[in-house]
């Protein structure tokens, strides 16, 4: 059975070109870049080449790029650095729909006496800029707003937020883990001070990420030790993954526009077909202003984990915001923040596509999923008529 992988916001397949580029650095060139000898030291040049490729993808200068272990470390580092550098200020603004890498670090700081404002979103998952303006005060040291949401794909008004914050001299960090490689980002034009990205969301391996720090932005390291990354992030460099990330960024630069059109067309076909074939389905999020690869659909009257496991029998991989897929019993905080009714959150399924998905795969899902939905609805004690009768 072939796997139909539609869970690319969780992780992506490492591109074959990336693997090919990495292999020599896992086998032949295994030196330590900090070594004095040529065998290790020559790798510094490769790291710098990768840094240039990453910088090019997001419109940054290479010296503004710090390699990290991934998106979570980048997010944590950005917030930690801001807090350390402005010890007299104790207020951070973020949103209710952030990834746990930002959300939980902010909650951690809240336990340390920081005041955290979690901005609300509307029923399409969008921010109201007035809420941000009202939240800012003299004590605000940092605003951290994600570039694009991992669950519903919404793209946030980063340009507008950045301009507001720049005028007020407040640091601005954006978690762009889901956006980089999927939509064009040009930090020459975007007023962002710090940006996080993660390799495994754009066809590079897991365990490699980047924190962009705009030139002139003060910075306080999170991981200390050796002098690597100009003392901004200690630890022996993950050379093969850095080189892999460089290649993945190069591929993204070459293909971003073609892929945008290709993937969004497949996504739209999947979405419109499922809505047509399955009654009582709703789209969660902002259908206009979102990533090209993501659709989050709620199948009313049935539960997400049951849908996922039935799809799993056909090799179809997706994810759900339902509580039953996690140990916490709490359904998706993103969908809850958007005010999606519980009846719909429980039956939510996120499909996230990549360049490797084909039209045949999408056709297969369109062929199989309505039957699964129908079967589970036959098992369910709920349905439109019954719910209307009950409430």
């Amino acid at each position: 059975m072939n796997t139909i992988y539609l869970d690319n916001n969780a992780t992506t397949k490492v591109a074959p070109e990336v693997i090919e580029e990495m292999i020599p650095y896992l086998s032949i060139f295994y030196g330590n870049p900090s070594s004095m000898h040529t065998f290790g030291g020559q790798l510094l040049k490769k790291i710098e080449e990768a840094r240039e490729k990453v910088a090019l993808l997001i419109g940054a200068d290479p010296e503004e790029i710090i390699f990290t272990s991934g998106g979570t470390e980048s997010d944590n580092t950005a917030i930690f650095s801001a807090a350390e550098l402005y010890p007299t200020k104790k207020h951070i603004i973020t949103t209710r729909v952030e990834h746990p890498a930002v959300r939980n670090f902010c909650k951690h700081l809240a336990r340390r006496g920081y005041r955290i404002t979690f901005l609300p979103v509307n029923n399409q998952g969008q921010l109201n800029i007035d809420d941000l303006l009202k939240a800012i005060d003299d004590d605000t040291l940092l605003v951290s707003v994600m570039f694009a949401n991992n669950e519903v794909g919404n793209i946030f008004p980063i340009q507008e937020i950045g301009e507001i914050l720049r005028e007020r001299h407040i640091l601005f960090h954006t978690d762009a883990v889901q956006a980089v490689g999927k939509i064009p980002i040009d930090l020459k034009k975007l007023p962002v001070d710090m940006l996080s990205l993660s390799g495994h969301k754009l066809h590079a391996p897991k365990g490699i990420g980047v924190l962009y720090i705009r030139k002139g932005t003060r910075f306080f390291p999170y991981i200390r030790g050796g002098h690597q990354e100009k003392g901004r992030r200690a630890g022996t460099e993950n050379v093969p993954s850095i080189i892999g990330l460089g290649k993945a960024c190069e591929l993204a630069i070459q293909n971003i526009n073609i892929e945008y059109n290709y993937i969004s067309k497949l996504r739209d076909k999947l979405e419109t077909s499922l809505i047509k074939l399955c009654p009582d389905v709703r789209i969660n999020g902002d259908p206009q202003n979102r990533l090209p690869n993501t659709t989050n659909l709620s199948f009313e009257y049935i539960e997400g984990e049951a849908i996922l496991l039935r799809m799993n029998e056909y090799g179809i991989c997706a994810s759900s915001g339902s509580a039953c897929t996690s140990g916490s019993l709490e359904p998706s905080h993103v969908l809850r923040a958007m005010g999606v009714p519980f009846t719909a959150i429980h039956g939510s399924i996120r499909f996230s596509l990549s360049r490797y998905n084909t039209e045949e795969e999408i056709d297969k899902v369109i062929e199989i999923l309505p039957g699964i939905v129908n079967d589970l609805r036959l098992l369910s004690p709920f349905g439109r008529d019954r719910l209307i009768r009950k409430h």
Partner: protein
Amino acid sequence: MWDYTDKVKEFFLNPKNIGEIDNPDAVGEVGSIICGDALRLTLKVDKETNRIIDARFQTFGCASAIASSSALTELIKGKTLDEALQISNQDIADFLGGLPKEKMHCSVMGREALEAAINNYKGIPTVVEEEGRVVCQCFNVTEEKIRKVAMENHLTTVDDITNYTKAGGGCGECKSEIEAILRDIWLIKKPEKLTKQKKLTNLQKIALIQEIIEKEIRPALQSDGGDIEIIDIEGNKVVIAMRGMCTGCVMSGVTIDSIQNKLREFVGEEITVEVQ
């Protein structure tokens, strides 16, 4: 991904007894779409013998909820109502080869639906959950339900309660209240599972002693700045060392007696405690 047994997967993918009986003799409905789990059980009962001739279910929920519901119907078909009432949520889980601990609430839902259906058959009015004191607002779980499930399943921790009832699994604000209910239950009534132990193997005994010390004794000592360490367990002799504020405490004799009493109560009358 949850580690479901093959039987859970089988009963989820190919559930038995799905649907609704026409003109059922009994209907049991529990859960709600808001809470994420709901089960509607319909029964056909032989009025002469009080035997369940047919049982069908409709479930809104995850794989283990569907499998538990289907398992329940298989377990009760052919049984008299009294026999069916003997089936516990643990029996449902056991029938399926076990459920992940976080999913035990699915088996509890099955047991509740069965009770509701039999009450319905007997004309006993259904107790509306909202009428009890709601402890967990997120999942609308009453104090009565927490007590009942804790006693039936010998649950002693808040995590256990969450796994079996969902209470405390949402915002978590009710956790301290659940803890208070548990303290109250086990002060009044000791866990049946622990006293019902018949003949324990050495390994079971050691595990039980460790569990009792961990859950029943250590927290109280730690709250006073003390602690306890198990040095050795030889047969019925438990050798301990007192730590922290308990070391050299003038009341240590009383403390050691109470530790011994606790172990005798939960593990066996023959237990003796010695201090190193």
